């Protein structure tokens, strides 16, 4: 018997479905992307910003955002950084290996609701992964949006994920992309400095009343970026962030991800900034 729900039986939301790795590759040192095909049941359809719980056999289960294109019904893509036991096991999976998946979970970037707007993406480090499905959506439907800006920062050039793809996006004539690193390395000819420096600059060139911003990265980066956006005149209700907390269930049962009244797994991870701004200022909340 497998985790596949029997017809008529209530599927247990804690039981993973089996998927097989179709392709897996390293993005940068310690960060790997994999594409998955379902073994039990149908492929997972998702919305940009949602995540899955990925299970490595015998090791454990972690929350990982879906980093692929939501319009491509055939694939399920995840990009994971190895930081501990489970994430390391996930990044080591190779084509043909099996992985458990529960999901998709959580709220989505309200990207379709922001049609007609100038979309500003602000990404820090691996925060680009959860944003990438939204970026694909805007790029695939570029005529429906007034503008596209991506400000992407990482600690060092070797920590920039999807670097080649970012170059491709930048080579389009209808995108504005700023990539910056905190610490340059030999050969780096790009920007150096924090994300907000370049965010402030790009905001000078757009009408703030038309901007909708999507931010994902360290909380401190999102807070400062939100302040920059507010300074520039972008309304708080046009700003969206994705938050991260310890997660054990993703379905509102384990309590770990609570953030005041919100369960980040169900009510988030994507929030409108004004809904969480006060809480982000609280220490150890």
């Amino acid at each position: 018997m497998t985790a596949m729900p029997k017809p008529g039986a209530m599927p247990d939301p804690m039981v993973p479905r089996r998927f097989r790795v179709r392709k897996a590759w390293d993005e940068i040192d310690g960060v790997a992307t994999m594409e998955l095909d379902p073994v039990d049941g149908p492929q997972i359809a998702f919305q940009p910003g949602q995540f899955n719980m990925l299970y490595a056999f015998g090791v454990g289960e972690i929350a990982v955002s879906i980093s692929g294109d939501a319009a491509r019904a055939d694939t399920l893509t995840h990009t994971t950084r190895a930081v501990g036991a489970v994430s390391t096991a996930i990044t080591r999976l190779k084509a043909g290996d099996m992985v458990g998946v529960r999901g998709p979970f959580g709220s989505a970037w309200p990207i379709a609701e922001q049609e007609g707007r100038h979309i500003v993406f602000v990404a820090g480090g691996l925060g680009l992964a959860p944003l990438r499905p939204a970026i694909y959506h805007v790029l695939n439907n570029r005529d429906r949006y007034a503008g596209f800006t991506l400000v992407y920062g990482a600690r060092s050039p070797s920590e920039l994920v999807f670097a080649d793809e970012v170059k491709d996006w930048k080579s389009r004539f209808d995108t504005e992309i700023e990539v910056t690193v905190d610490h340059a390395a030999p050969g780096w000819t790009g920007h150096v400095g924090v994300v907000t420096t370049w965010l402030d600059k790009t905001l000078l060139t757009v009408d703030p009343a038309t901007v909708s911003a999507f931010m994902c990265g360290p909380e401190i980066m999102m807070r400062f970026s939100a302040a920059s956006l507010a300074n520039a005149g972008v309304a708080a209700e046009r700003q969206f962030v994705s938050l991260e907390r310890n997660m054990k269930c993703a379905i509102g049962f384990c309590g770990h991800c609570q953030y005041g009244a919100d369960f980040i797994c169900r009510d988030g991870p994507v929030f409108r900034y004004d809904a969480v701004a006060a809480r982000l200022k609280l220490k150890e909340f």
Partner: protein
Amino acid sequence: MSASPAPALLIDDPAVLVEALQRQGWRVIGPQARDGAITYDPLTPGATLPKGLTDTQEGGHYRLGAGDPGRWFDYVVGPQSWKKHLFPSRQKLWEASRTDDGFAVTPVQDDYPKTAFFGVRACEIAAMEVQDRVFDNGDFADPGYGRRRAATLIVAVNCTRAAATCFCASMQTGPRAKAGFDIALTELATGTGLLVEVGSDRGAEIVDGLDLPRANAAHRAEAEAASAAAAAMQTRAMPPGMAGVLAANLDHPQWQVVADACLSCGNCTMACPTCFCSDVEDVNDLSGDHTERWRTWDSCFTVDFTYVHGGAVRRSTASRYRQWMTHKLSSWEAQFGTSGCVGCGRCIAWCPVGIDITAEAAAIAASPVPKE
């Protein structure tokens, strides 16, 4: 459970009801005096109810001792709640085994026969109804919890005395159960038996078979008065409007005051009948070919509870106590439309240093931090 208009009855010996349930194939879980406390464990045939016992409870204090020998239910709630049966503290969720092409997952169902909870207090019914909303949140339902809950019959006991730690009256959860039971008992004056009320068709069927005498209006009035007396003797109360008070006082200095006393042991969350937090654990056999996923109770008082790569979010005791109390009394209402506290007083009695949720709430309510 549909309310049934069945008339109230009288029973002399509640053990007769226990035996009747057992005869009808119910596993009966009921109060037992174990290690100096009332616990809720399966009643083996012939097991006796802890008649003649009473408890003294205070902040950091619980003692079970001799009371009126003629009284069946003169103790109130002990350290454990019914939660441990509906939401076991350790539960296997599924198993997986390595196969040639990966692994296979097998969901696990625990064995939970049809079960009667015997002696459920009003606050404990309220606690179950609180957890019902947690484990069926509209998007997801825990099938194990749902199965166990559906297979459970509730025999309530309306409290006729309160401990010093009880404050159900101020939480509107007791001491008299208004609904949520199949059968409810109220102990009348010593030696005159117990009033039997029926709350469902299931309960009516069971009681019908006992051929009990009918109660009269005086019996019913006496039962109501006994519950009212249990409410009147409550010395603790939750100040009103705490949901809003706490939400507006997340920076209050009292959090640090209580943190200076709090051991961050998590006893309050373990004893609490509504706390639902859990962790998961993967248990592998030596070969590494077989693994099991277990769910265990967890507490927001542990540092690891909020661990993310780089460290825990709530590192200080003050932040964890704030999480506990604001969750119970404030954010729970936004999450589930009800308070997370039913006023059972367990967290007060079983706190090793006697921290009192009603006193902490009152301290903050009395000196709110001025708004910026």
